[in-house]
């Protein structure tokens, strides 16, 4: 009885100590703010910021290596949110906010090469070889990854059209 209790206690202490040591020495370095920053980014992994994806961009932001204005699809609102989170002041007048944009295929010059649809991070382009491609508007994030791939300049970004459902009452003029 005493033997069993003793051996289990020794084992527990030894293994617990081992786990404790492992958690200290083998810990993966991660800044807790990274996850929060990543959640703020659009998440389409378009790579326009120069990093591989949004996770890497968030890591760079957390280390202070990247400017909060790095995300072109996010525009002014994302830059503002990032600046607020990181507690930095930023001059947003230089950030060009074109508003939400969508990719559009000029059907007359599309040759159906399939290059754009391989580049699309959200699978928003449908098409097949030698068939005119088209963009599913609801899935397009306006990241522009497809624009550079097009050999005939048939792919362009256009502002998202304002419909009755998207229209917002203007703010009353300040008295």
């Amino acid at each position: 009885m005493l033997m069993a209790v003793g051996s289990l206690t020794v084992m527990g202490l030894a293994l617990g100590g081992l786990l404790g040591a492992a958690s200290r020495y083998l810990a993966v370095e991660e800044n807790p703010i990274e996850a929060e920053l990543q959640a703020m980014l659009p998440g389409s992994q378009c790579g326009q910021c120069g990093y591989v994806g949004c996770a890497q961009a968030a890591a760079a932001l957390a280390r202070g290596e990247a400017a909060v204005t790095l995300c072109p699809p996010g525009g002014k609102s994302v830059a503002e949110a990032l600046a607020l989170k990181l507690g930095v002041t930023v001059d947003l007048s230089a950030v060009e906010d074109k508003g939400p944009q969508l990719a559009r295929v000029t059907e007359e010059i599309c040759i159906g090469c399939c290059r754009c649809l391989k580049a699309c991070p959200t699978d928003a382009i449908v098409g097949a070889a030698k068939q005119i491609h088209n963009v599913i508007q609801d899935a397009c994030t306006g990241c522009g990854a497809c624009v550079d791939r097009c050999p005939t300049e048939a792919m362009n970004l256009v502002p998202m059209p304002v419909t009755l459902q998207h229209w917002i009452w203007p703010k009353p003029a300040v008295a």
Partner: protein
Amino acid sequence: MGLFEKIFKPQWGVHPDDHKRPAADAALRFLPAPAQVHMPLHQHVGGAARPVVAVGQKVLKGQILAEARGNISAPIHSPVSGVVRAIGEVTAPHASGLDFPAITVDSDFADKWIELDAVADPFSLAPEEIARRTAAAGVVGLGGATFPSAVKFSLGKRLAVGTLIVNGGECEPYLSSDDRIMRDFADQVVDGVRIVMHAIGAAEALVGIEDNKPEAIAAMRKAAAPFPDVKIRPVPARYPMGSDKQLIETLTGKEVPANARAAEVGVLVHNVSTCAAVHKAIRLGQPLVERIVTINGGAVANPGNIYAPLGTLVDEILAFCGLREAPARLVLGGPMMGTHLKHGKVPLVKGASGILAFNAVEAEIPEAGPCIRCGSCTKACPMGLLPLEMAARIRSGHLEDAVEFNLTDCISCGCCAYVCPSHIPLVQYFVHAKGELEAEERTKLRSEAAKRLTEARSGRLEREAKEKAEAAARRKAEREAAKAKAKAPAAKNTEEASA
């Protein structure tokens, strides 16, 4: 009014000059079928209807032009007989002045109805069948909310609603279309109320009518006399009595919680005009293609109520009533919550209870001054909010702080802006802020969807790479097996040869 009501009369709201007469007392006039009507595909809450007719096709009055799309939607029917001229865009009755899709029908002036499927005894039908017929007739809430009525029927049935509240409040100044329908077609309204009660399984109906409409109350009392479960309840005239939450509280004493539907406190609200439309849809089989609309305002020569086909241009209806002068402002709906129209080339839609043509005096907007923190708006707010605090935060761009003050409970009734002695456009701030918040919500949903799509794509790419590698390995194994096979007989042959 009893002693109780005298002491505990509602503290909220405002009491504007109602301007309802003489328009409300003028006899109902019928607008002859116009040469052309434009039926918008989106006249209701929910998905826009999908056209089922082709350009050049002949249609009869009441024939379906576009079918409902999605669970919450409503079909559109032709208000005249004639030929489909175009499926294109017309200016929407919306403050933005943007275009939206509509079906244009040229009238042949015959006004020939399609064959109608009338029901002699609606009470022998199953409630589901009544909901189905109401949905097929394109009936939506005619008080202005334009929520598809049949969807509300099934909701009421599911949540076992005991009381049907019939909204005859019509608290907006200038408007009298509900007043007129109760005076002229009280029998239809009461029959519609009974059909709706049957559809939702309600035991009683309370018809709330503001006490500034004594003729309507008398007509409805007379029509409802044979039916003890339909109770006519005059309510004090006070804006916004016609808002569902306020009417429910006045009639039943129950308060609808924030972010909850009326059905959750055991009641369901339908407008009197909606009930009349349900009567027509079931008893006569007629889809919703016409409505009563109030034409009023200082610029109108003969104000009154007009029975007009939907899709008629506002300009044509105004011309029918005659204009004294060019209107300084056109409003669709009431002066408190209506929509400012940029011009009159806008079709009449299902939810339009009035068209107001204001003269310069009525249309004048006084210049806004600074807030003096008098608190008039907090007393007027029927939802018990603090408009001055919310507006100050929205003005400085802090929408989240305004939400802390329960901006989402605001019903945009406009009482705050009406009473403000500094003429601050309070409700305009709230409408703007609610639009911004909705846009933010949409962006959030969009980016969440983008994340899901990205993950699905990377999953697919991984799977494809794995499948490719597996296929390559399989082929390699097959090749090697074939090679080994080829080698083995060869070895056998050499063995045989050596032997």
